[in-house]
């Protein structure tokens, strides 16, 4: 402890990582007696053999978005059809490199976010503040135990995990420079490493904030909170938080509470910060995901906008200024060329901002942000200049200029028929524009290319005004981790296959057709008694629809980790708990050791746990990182059609029998186990394909016959319902007759005979030689 004190005398932020050393020793030697597995804190190459195994079966499939490379001054190099760049690289390796860069950008976001949070929480609560996720959660940090090989007890213990993460990110980034890694397989191995590192960072961030702030701790009955474009009470002063880091937002609430005026000021959020605000306080409100950012800000409803980090429109400060909304940026991730007033006295800052002298400032201190934001909001709210009817008229007048040139559509990333909609609006029909509202990403690219400078997104807003006003939904606030008790309840059914699968809806809002398809998918799987999870923007978007009874899915289904329920884990960082749940099953139900034992656990999950993630609107580099991390752990991911722009999938080949051999751990024999799961990362063109593919990808070699029968019957049923036919490939998933759904048995048996099907054994499946005679 003396050591730690001497460190505290150092002012630099870097010095914060000191003081850990003695503690680590303690944990390892005294507090966690689990034996250390083969790969604690794995280096880039420690898990390379596992990656190569995966990549041999699930080969990288590249769809280059660009044929050129422009990464060094030899470029641009044209890499079309076998041509190589000046550095000798070919398109495959170059695409692998680009994918790795994307995964690293994503992982770096989460690592930085985690570091910011941890620094903040340690400053507030101290390095010794305990990590505690609630009574029924002993396995507090499955990924940290698994990857880092430590059992974190205190906030301070997480610092060394972040040190490790930052080192790995640096080494991986280095490998993307010109003249480093040469082969796409090893680029993908590195991307898988980056993905694992990313997931670890997620966990660090979320368990830190759950422990130290007053978030729900794995509570299936986390409260229902307000969500939607219409939930903000404009009669009150409004503070809008955008981003991912809850620190400034929570300090706003702290300050309001301290002053006793919480409730008379609205605190609302967009993107994951919104999730975390409601986890911090049920009085906070969620406006919506990224895809509602621009329209909401343009409404001018916010008095003050507080930006933290990630997923913030680059032009949002300009947009805010236009409607008189004041802006505070709060982290080193987004300084926006604004004056740094961190060290100025609060009253001066408030005056500068409120007067409009300096309508946007940088304050790198969450507590100060809290006070300033509230004071400014209170001061300027009375004179707020929300959008007026005359402005709306002006917008609709601008629409008259449309000359149907079609440039807006051709610049729209979703290829939405916005030109037709604007033309129709010109002819006084606003319906098409209002329809676009549901599918629109709020990206404003249409606007950007309109030769008539028509404010198209504003026109969409005006056309959908009625809809927007009525957008009031309920979402279950993010509960965080799955309880150990829940794992004990369902672990067996999942591993045996009797719960047909765990389907997680994750990632961003870049959907091909708006959020409704997401809702339909979640509903379908919940109805079929899969376990449904959701996080991030997807968790919000699932709430953005009501059924005939006026209920959102969160009202319709319970929030347990159980068949037929829908769990909102929370913000993007809470994705850790989705991976974590799989890991927990392996540990709690199957008693597999976690500590530094990545390969074995991933092998377990790949072969036994029917979990699949659907990132239907994956857009950000973080989504690439999260998905790739899930893949390394043996969890397949399905992307929407825009996901092809990540440039890489991991695809299996049903038709290549030799790829589907596993060891039977009981005998050591290599046996054919069928294409299960068939792909690790797959891009589906439509929701129909996504659903049927998910139902297929939950199948695992370890399924019992009863489990397989259940999974197969959903697969076949969904296939019939959505494709109109029995699947061509169902026989590949039938090991013996008892795998067949009873109701269709005769019909299917006939087909099996036609297809010359023969039964195979159900192995105790593993890809790892060393699992063959398992010592436990």
């Amino acid at each position, binding site marked *: 402890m003396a050591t730690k004190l001497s460190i505290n005398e150092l002012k630099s932020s870097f010095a914060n990582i000191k003081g850990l050393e003695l503690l680590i020793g303690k944990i390892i030697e005294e507090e966690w007696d689990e034996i250390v597995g083969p790969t604690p804190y794995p280096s880039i190459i420690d898990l390379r053999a596992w990656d190569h195994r995966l990549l041999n079966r699930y080969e990288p*499939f*590249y*769809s*280059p*978005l*660009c*044929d*050129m490379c422009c990464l060094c001054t030899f470029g641009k190099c*044209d*890499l*079309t*059809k*076998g041509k190589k760049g000046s550095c000798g690289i070919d*398109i*495959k390796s170059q695409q692998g490199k680009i994918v790795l860069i994307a995964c690293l950008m994503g992982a770096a976001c989460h690592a930085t976010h985690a570091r910011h949070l941890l620094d903040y929480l340690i400053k507030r609560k101290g390095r010794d503040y305990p990590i505690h996720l609630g009574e029924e959660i002993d396995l507090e940090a499955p990924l940290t135990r698994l990857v880092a090989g430590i059992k974190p007890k205190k906030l301070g213990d997480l610092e060394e995990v972040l040190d490790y993460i930052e080192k790995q990110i640096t080494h991986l980034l280095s490998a993307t420079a010109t003249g480093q890694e040469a082969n796409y397989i090893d680029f993908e191995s590195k991307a898988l490493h980056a993905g694992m590192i990313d997931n670890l960072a997620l966990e660090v961030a979320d368990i830190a904030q759950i422990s130290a702030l007053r978030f729900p701790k794995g509570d299936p009955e986390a409260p229902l909170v307000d969500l939607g474009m219409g939930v903000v009470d404009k009669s009150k002063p409004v503070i809008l938080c955008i981003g991912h880091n809850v620190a400034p937002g929570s300090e706003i609430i702290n300050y309001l509470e301290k002053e006793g005026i919480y409730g008379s000021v609205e605190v609302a959020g967009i993107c994951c910060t919104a999730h975390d605000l409601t986890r911090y306080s049920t009085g906070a409100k969620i406006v919506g995901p990224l895809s509602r950012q621009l329209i909401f800000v343009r409404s001018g409803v916010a008095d003050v906008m507080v930006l933290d980090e990630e997923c913030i429109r680059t032009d949002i400060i300009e947009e805010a200024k236009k409607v008189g909304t004041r802006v505070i940026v709060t982290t080193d991730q987004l300084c926006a060329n604004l004056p740094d007033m961190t060290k100025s006295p609060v009253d001066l800052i408030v005056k500068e901002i409120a007067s409009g002298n300096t309508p946007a400032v940088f304050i790198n201190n969450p507590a100060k942000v809290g006070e300033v934001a509230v004071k400014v909001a209170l001061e300027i709210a009375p004179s707020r200049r929300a959008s007026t009817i005359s402005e709306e008229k002006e917008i609709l007048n601008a629409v008259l200029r449309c000359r149907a040139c079609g*440039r807006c559509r*051709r*610049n*729209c*990333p979703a*290829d939405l*028929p916005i030109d037709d909609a604007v033309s129709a609006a010109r002819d006084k029909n606003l319906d098409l524009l209002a329809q676009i509202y549901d599918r629109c990403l709020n990206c404003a690219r249409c606007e950007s*290319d309109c030769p008539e400078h028509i404010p198209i997104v504003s026109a969409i807003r005006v056309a959908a005004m009625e809809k927007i006003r009525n957008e009031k939904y309920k979402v279950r606030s993010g509960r965080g981790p799955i309880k150990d008790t829940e794992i004990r309840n369902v672990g067996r059914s999942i591993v045996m296959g009797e719960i047909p699968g765990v389907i997680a809806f994750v990632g961003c809002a870049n959907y*091909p057709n708006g959020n409704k398809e997401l809702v339909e998918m979640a509903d379908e799987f919940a109805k079929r008694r899969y376990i449904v999870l959701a996080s991030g923007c997807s968790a919000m978007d699932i709430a953005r629809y009501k059924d005939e009874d006026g209920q959102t899915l969160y009202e319709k289904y319970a929030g347990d980790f159980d068949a037929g329920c829908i769990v909102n884990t929370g913000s993007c960082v809470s994705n850790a708990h989705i991976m974590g749940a799989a890991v927990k099953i392996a540990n709690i139900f199957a008693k597999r050791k976690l500590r530094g034992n990545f390969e074995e656990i991933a092998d377990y999950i790949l072969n036994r746990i029917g979990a699949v993630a659907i990132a239907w609107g994956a857009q950000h580099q973080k989504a690439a990182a999260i998905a790739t991390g899930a893949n390394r752990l043996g969890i397949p991911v399905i992307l929407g*059609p*825009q996901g*092809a*722009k990540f*440039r890489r*999938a991991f*695809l299996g*080949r049903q*038709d290549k029998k030799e790829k589907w051999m596993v060891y039977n751990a009981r005998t050591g024999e290599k046996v054919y186990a069928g294409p299960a799961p068939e*792909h690790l990362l*797959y*891009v*589906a*063109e*439509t*929701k*129909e*394909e996504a659903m*049927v*593919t998910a139902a297929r990808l939950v199948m695992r070699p370890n399924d019992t016959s009863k489990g397989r029968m259940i999974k197969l019957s959903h697969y076949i049923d969904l296939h019939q319902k*959505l*494709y*109109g*036919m029995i699947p*061509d490939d169902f026989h590949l998933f039938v090991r013996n007759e008892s795998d067949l759904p009873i109701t269709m048995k005769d019909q299917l048996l006939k087909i099996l005979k036609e297809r010359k099907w023969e039964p195979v054994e159900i192995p105790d499946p593993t890809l790892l030689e060393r699992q063959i005679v398992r010592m436990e």
Partner: protein
Amino acid sequence: MSATPWQIADIPGPKQAHVLRVEMFPKIAKTLKRPLMVVGSRKEAFEGNDLEKYIVELAKLMNSPLVVSPGLCKNFINFKDIKVICMGIEDLINRLKDKDWKGFDDEGNYDAVIFIAGIYYFQSLMLSTLKHFAPHLKTFSIDRFYHPNAEFSFENMSEKRWIQEIKSLVGMMKSSLH
């Protein structure tokens, strides 16, 4: 109506599709030994027309099986005398790029793929995969968009004009066979 990528920034690089005019196609089609027609999932394309019918006719005329993207295969399963395969496009492309793939009839890979009605950006990337990794295949897009990543592609045109073009394509193919 020009040969610029439908989505403005969909510029892959120096290699971009030759413009395909309807009247060129029957001639080219004759040189193909094992063509494969692939229907994507751009659902709007099928509204208020008989596109399915023309597609099936075309496939028959070319003696090609029809792979239909899962979002739309229901529209095709009731046609007779045509092999309809309902299969994810990415999965299909992954096989097509493997020269040694056996095809749907176990007789080997195809020599040409003709795409229609795909979601533009997704279709573009699938064509990109084939452009880079399937030198053994010719690729055609007869969608209403100019697809730079195809080897031959229609120009951009309106939905209406496009249906006309498809119709006349079917007509020309017929007369070229007789």
